């Protein structure tokens, strides 16, 4: 059961990324003008940084498990991300590019996530789902682990956004209803935070079904970029609630809200896919999800999210067994690593 939910989670994420991709940074009006309602993945285009950084995060968990530290993540960035950053780093958000520049200067976490100012970016939220899979049923552990990754590239609200997603996925992995999933996301972040305020507004707006109220409450109007984690996570959770946790309706709802549409649809797809399992992801979408092409992160080229999900589910089982036996999980699990 864990495996089919894990596969559903990452397949839903990849499908949302691919569906939302052409709608990124578009207004709702422009989306309506182009597609009416955007429901079909553009064939042959694949996913973006959301999928590829998610595969990267999963590989960290396969290798280090619950012993993952920020120092481990920074070392993996230096070995697997930074060497590719001399040329164009396509698809990276401000937080990832900023973190690479900070790491190149010799900064270590958490300074690497503070130095570039874009701590609020949704770059962690977009790759947080694997932490919820790994810590299925344990939202506090998911939130703890994702923060170890998060402080390498993010700070403050950007870390909270990742924690909300990871904790919510951890509960979605139990098959809990959407309201409980969203509640777990809220419980993972401080009440006095931008993320919490936006998430509560999203829950209220989704309950009333008013997209206008949702926009008024969470969309930052006088800022040209759309990658703010509090906004993106709120829109993603709203899409998931509007879709009642069904994969297709959740992903489509999120993508058609516009803004950072690939990331918001990916997160909505991760939540819904974890709840409903692999078989609930529309087959016409699943057929279009191939191996990552590495356009954003060359290190993960060739990896398919379904294989990654299966490995991650196995790693979760292996690490929980090891932790139960020895009381600690340190020691790289090389057989499960990304090679």
């Amino acid at each position: 059961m864990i495996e089919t939910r894990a596969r559903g989670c990452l397949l839903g994420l990849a499908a949302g990324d691919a569906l939302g991709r052409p709608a990124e940074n578009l207004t709702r009006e422009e989306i309506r003008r182009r597609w009416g309602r955007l429901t079909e993945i553009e064939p042959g285009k694949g996913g973006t940084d959301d999928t590829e950084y998610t595969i990267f995060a999963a590989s960290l968990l396969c290798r280090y498990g619950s012993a993952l530290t920020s120092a481990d993540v920074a070392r993996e960035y230096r070995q697997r991300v930074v060497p590719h950053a001399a040329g164009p780093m396509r698809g990276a958000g401000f937080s990832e590019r900023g973190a690479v520049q900070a790491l190149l200067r010799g900064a270590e976490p958490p300074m690497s996530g503070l130095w570039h100012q874009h701590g609020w970016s949704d770059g962690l939220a977009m790759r947080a789902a694997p932490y919820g899979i790994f810590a299925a049923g344990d939202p506090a552990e998911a939130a703890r682990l994702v923060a170890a990754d998060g402080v390498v590239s993010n700070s403050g609200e950007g870390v909270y956004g990742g924690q909300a997603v990871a904790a919510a996925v951890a509960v979605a992995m139990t098959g809990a209803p959407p309201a409980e999933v969203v509640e777990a996301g809220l419980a993972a972040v401080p009440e006095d935070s931008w993320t919490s305020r936006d998430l509560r507004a999203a829950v209220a707006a989704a309950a009333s079904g008013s997209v206008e109220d949702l926009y008024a409450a969470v969309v930052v109007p006088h800022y040209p970029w759309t990658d703010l984690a509090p906004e993106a996570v709120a829109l993603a959770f709203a899409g998931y609630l509007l879709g009642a946790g069904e994969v297709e309706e959740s992903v489509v709802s999120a993508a058609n809200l516009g803004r950072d549409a690939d990331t918001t649809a990916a997160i909505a797809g991760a939540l819904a896919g974890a709840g409903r399992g692999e078989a609930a992801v529309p087959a016409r979408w699943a057929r279009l999800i191939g191996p990552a092409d590495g356009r954003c992160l060359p290190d993960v080229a060739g990896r398919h999210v379904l294989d990654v999900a299966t490995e991650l589910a196995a790693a979760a089982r292996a690490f929980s067994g090891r932790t139960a036996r020895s009381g600690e999980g340190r020691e790289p699990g090389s057989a499960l690593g990304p090679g």
Partner: protein
Amino acid sequence: MSSGDRIRGAFAGLAIGDAAGWPSARHRSALLAPWSRRLERELDAFAEEHALTTLPVPFALNQPVGPLAIGPSDDAEWLAWTALTVHEDREAAFLRLAGRSDLRTRISVRTALANLAAGKRPPASGHDNPHHFDDAAAVRAVAFGAAGVDPRADASVTNALDGVLAAAAMAAAVAELVSGAPMSSAVAAALAELPDETAIGHATRTALTVARAAGDPFAAVPALDAALLDHVYSYGVAAAQTVAVALALAEVSEGALALAVPAAACLPSLADSAPALTGALTGAATGYDALPPGWRAATRTLAGCGLPDLAGADIIDIAGGLA
């Protein structure tokens, strides 16, 4: 030299620095007709389409040319507004601006005003804000430092975290300088407000180290660029960069505005506000009478390019209200 002369020096220095950077003419061209700014944007696109290195500049066809003469712009106006309201409740002062459609502001201030209008109060108005880290409050903090008033309540309306620490640091430095302390004491007072583990604390210590090693302000420019700026983001008003540069150049110049401000203006991405902050510190160090008379004269009358109510106001008279 009196503290009043140093307060006037801080204000005049900020106005001079504000006028010295290339963005000043962009801000002041807000006073020109919208069609002329549209034409400038089209000329920018034309240069791109035709691969031209002849870059367009703000211009005033068929209009008064006065706004494009050297003069102060947004930062001097916000400092003047702050001085005029410095003893008021800060939320109330900003609430009077919320809902106005004739202001030009930084992203942090625009977002804070929208938050206030929507009922979101400080500190959330400054925290739930994509540019909570910018230097809008650090500019206003020059008035709080001059008046000896804590800047944090004001800063928290529009900023959070590094943006509020920056205001505390600027106010602390200016307060030291107007009391007659040397620049080294002012920098030490600023550093005391900037914890090591914050980006602004780390950046300011880095900036001081590389500027000291370079030995003088102009020599420090490439070192500051290399040490502080990653050139990833689309805006250059992060307080962790502009306040760091201002403190470093003010110190290595030993308070000489005529050395420090031009150097700050040589960092193009920071040229909107780093020169203004540098000017405030160095002007406070030497006092008003020691500043170049030509610059003093050219920058004392506000244009109203950000806050229209202040068009024609005299920033030195306003500074005198605090002296």
